[in-house]
């Protein structure tokens, strides 16, 4: 797989790709990113509305290691809180944040547009329609079982397929982007109509659209993992290819890339992961735009560093944001979309003011 992904690059392309820089050592950045994500994981396990001591949590974790002879002193309910409610929620936050950021970075590279997010080609609208139809017409099944995430996933992927069918063009990406806007508008119209016809389910639909991790369990993690895994591996293998794509279609073609085919592959992989993330967590905004930009600012604009670091920083950022979402108004919850946008929007404004010219 690695060979195949690297193959399209000629020596000239490989040499050219090096013009995009990585500030300092990649390994140092990745190490920092891993530390950030780990810090988010640990904070997420320790902090929550139920006061449970760190010592007891560590002891409970260690009691699972054989031959240490340690016993957990957590009560049944505290143990359930830490291992069945908190941990899967943090892990899902890491996965969703990583996936949205990585997909966002890829979309920005493929479309050579810094303002693009993973919802560009209609994933969000399609998933929203799928979820709304499910909630409106089969509420009993929607909230008890896998049909809601499945409907959202199918809707998200279906929307992007339609966008591609309409917007396929040999002349760059503008037609595709316009097709995405069109499909988004159309599907959102249907979604709003269905929602208006079923006002009794309005709150549930609204809640889903805002996005949240509050009902996350291990089951959701297992649902997302295969899609996020495949998607992230494919995207990471194409990090150098994305560097070459920043030159523009003509130059990249001259350097030996099959631009059209690579674009389809990258968009498909990013869409698969995004649709999976949206299916289990709803529409969480801003992450897919701001995280890749943050990474470009601090670590350099080469996709060799943008992709891996977006995964780590994006995952850590969403996990940390979720800690805020459940502690700011504790024991009440804030919708995570509100928290990401509240912190994300000012940050993005600062990026716009200070870093003009930092492109994908």
């Amino acid at each position: 797989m690695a060979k195949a992904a690297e193959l399209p690059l000629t020596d000239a392309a490989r040499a050219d790709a090096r013009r995009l820089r990585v500030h300092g050592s990649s390994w140092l950045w990745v190490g920092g990113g891993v530390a950030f994500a780990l810090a988010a994981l640990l904070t997420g396990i320790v902090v929550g509305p139920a006061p449970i001591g760190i010592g007891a949590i560590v002891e409970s974790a260690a009691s699972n290691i054989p031959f240490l002879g340690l016993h957990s002193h957590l009560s049944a309910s505290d143990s359930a809180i830490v291992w069945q409610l908190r941990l899967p929620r943090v892990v899902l936050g890491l996965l969703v944040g990583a996936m949205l950021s990585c997909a966002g970075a890829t979309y920005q590279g493929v479309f050579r547009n810094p303002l693009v997010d993973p919802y560009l080609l209609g994933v969000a609208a399609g998933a929203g329609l799928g979820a709304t139809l499910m909630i409106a017409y089969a509420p009993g099944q929607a909230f008890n079982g896998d049909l809601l995430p499945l409907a959202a996933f199918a809707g998200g992927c279906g929307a992007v397929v339609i966008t591609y069918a309409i917007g396929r063009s040999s002349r760059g990406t503008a037609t595709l982007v316009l097709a995405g806007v069109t499909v988004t508008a159309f599907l959102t119209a249907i979604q709003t109509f269905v929602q208006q016809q079923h006002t009794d389910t309005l709150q549930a639909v609204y809640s889903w659209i805002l996005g949240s991790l509050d009902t996350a369990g291990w089951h959701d993690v297992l649902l997302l993992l295969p899609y996020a895994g495949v998607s992230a591996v494919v995207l990471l293998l194409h990090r150098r290819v994305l560097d070459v794509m920043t030159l523009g279609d003509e130059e990249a073609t001259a350097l030996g890339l099959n631009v059209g085919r690579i674009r389809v592959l990258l968009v498909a992989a990013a869409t698969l992961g995004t649709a999976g993330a949206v299916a289990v967590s709803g529409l969480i905004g801003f992450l897919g735009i701001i995280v890749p930009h943050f990474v470009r600012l601090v670590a350099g604009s080469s996709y060799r560093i943008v992709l891996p670091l977006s995964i780590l920083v994006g995952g850590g950022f969403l996990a940390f944001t979720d800690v805020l979402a459940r502690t700011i108004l504790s024991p009440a919850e804030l919708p995570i979309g509100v928290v990401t946008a509240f912190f994300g929007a000012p940050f993005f404004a600062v990026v716009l003011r200070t870093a003009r010219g930092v492109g994908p």
Partner: protein
Amino acid sequence: MKHLFVSLLAALAVGIAASAVSAPAAVKYPHRIISLSPTATEDLFAIGAGKQVIAVDNQSDYPKSAPKTSLSGFTPNVEAVVAYHPDLVVISYSPKGFAGALAKAHVRVLLQPFAVTFKDAYAQMLQLGKVTGHLKEATALVARMKARIAKLVAAVPRKALTVYDELSPDYYSATGASIIGEIFKLFGLENIADAAPGAGSSGAVQLSAEYIVSESPDLIVLADTRCCGTSRATVSARPGWNTISAVKKGAIAVIDDSIASRWGPRLVNFVNAVASALRTTQK
């Protein structure tokens, strides 16, 4: 601010209604009433004004004999309403100047907004009675409701218990600033949602599964059965919820969403469901 606005509108609507009723000529009660509020529909039929009602909105599903139409109280259309030639339109909310537009079309409007207390709910029933010529029945209805609720509450021995009320599967929960919260207070129950900041002013807050499990409430009230298919079985199957006291003892009250989200005569059913579930905890 929103509350102020709503109450201003209410005052205005009451004013319009009252001035019409107190006209000195022979009192003529409305006989072409449209109700765009499911609660008002229930109230009107409970006080014997059902015969004067010619159309109700698409959410008014109780009583079954109510003349349900495709009219929407949520996104109401002035023309569609006026086409029925109503002489009174009862609404629970007035989006984008809907009440004003009806008034311009010379249609009487009565705004009865979401009631936060029993007092408000009873006042709306009495107001409907007065406006429709069924004040006696409305007074009797309120007295009957008060008596039945008092009886149900008295029949349950007082114990210091906690309660979690679920409005949606993502743990939105009714607070003390709602009629549901008021019912819990009648039974002397401690509502776990009231610990949330803002619970004093907002009728509902979103809790987390972690908080609910850690509080281990003695009673769970499910008001999201119809919207979202929640049941005793689905609640018990949630990860970690098997450690909750109410789940262990089976003290889960299952209530039709439409009863829990309205402020009409069937509030008595809500009180009854809570009382039955509480008797389970006594065993």
